[in-house]
């Protein structure tokens, strides 16, 4: 259970909400601190099943951290993100460095969205979220 009361950077929830509306096939977005606390999320109502955004945030952070460790182990160089592909869609995660703070951005796309489109959308969302977090 997350009990810490993190302050959400001003406007971040709006940015995520706008992006979910803007990009076709984007199911949800969330931003978490690098130690697994949810900062903001949007779009979960598009999913059929109930979800716990706090839990997904912690999972996204673990997933990102393991991906970074694995890439380090395999000498892949600097890692920008990681992806999960399933029959029903795809999730992309990106690490965001903002000053001294680190965040993880997670985006979930429907299966009709191809990798190229999803990665392009993620890059645009990453830029907007990074700008918002710097403010």
């Amino acid at each position, binding site marked *: *259970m*997350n009990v*810490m009361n*993190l302050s959400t950077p001003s406007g971040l929830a709006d940015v995520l909400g706008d992006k979910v509306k803007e990009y076709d096939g984007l199911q949800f977005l969330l931003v978490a*601190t*690098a*130690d*697994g*606390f949810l900062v903001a999320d949007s779009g979960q109502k598009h999913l059929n099943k109930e979800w716990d955004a*706090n*839990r997904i945030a*912690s*999972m996204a*952070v*673990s*997933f990102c*951290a*393991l991906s*970074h*460790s694995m890439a380090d*182990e395999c000498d892949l160089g600097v890692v920008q993100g990681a992806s999960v592909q399933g029959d029903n869609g795809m999730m992309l995660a990106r690490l965001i460095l903002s000053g*001294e*703070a*680190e965040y993880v951005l997670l985006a979930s796309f429907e299966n009709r969205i191809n990798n190229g489109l999803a990665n392009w959308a993620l890059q645009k969302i990453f830029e907007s979220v990074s700008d918002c977090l710097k403010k």
Partner: protein
Amino acid sequence: MLLKVVFAGPMGSGKSTAIGVLSDIEPVATEAKNNERFKVDKPTTTVGLDYGEILLGDAGKVALYGIPGQERFDFMWPIVAKGAMGVILLLDCSQDNYIEKLASFADTFSKWVDPGSFVVALNRGTENDLEACNLLVEKRDVVMPVFMADPREKDDLNMLLHVLISNAEIRLLQE
């Protein structure tokens, strides 16, 4: 031979430190900036897992796994615990409600690992802490030895591993 040992316990109990001290390889770590310094004052915290190895030459190796101790990462616990021959449950007695943590971690990890394969290690404890933990363990009707141990001390950690492996051997002989 590959033996898998899991270090469990709450955040700040010394799991990453213990694996770093014991491991013969560069440990795999998944550290992130800790935003809960009001709870445990350390700069980073494990968010995925820790991994290290004790190399036993031709005899194989002991794989050392550490969990992230916060409950929000409990989805990692069964993943890490799967196939473990034993659990070293680390507790820092200077933390609030460490006794409750002993009970909750023992209950939780007993779902995946035989509760007779646990060793409890108390850091920064007193004789009273030791007694309180022994009392709690006795009520559980399992062999769960409780020791004072410093996760920075290799001798302490080796002792815990020896006890864990010896208990496993005894159980195998009894089966």
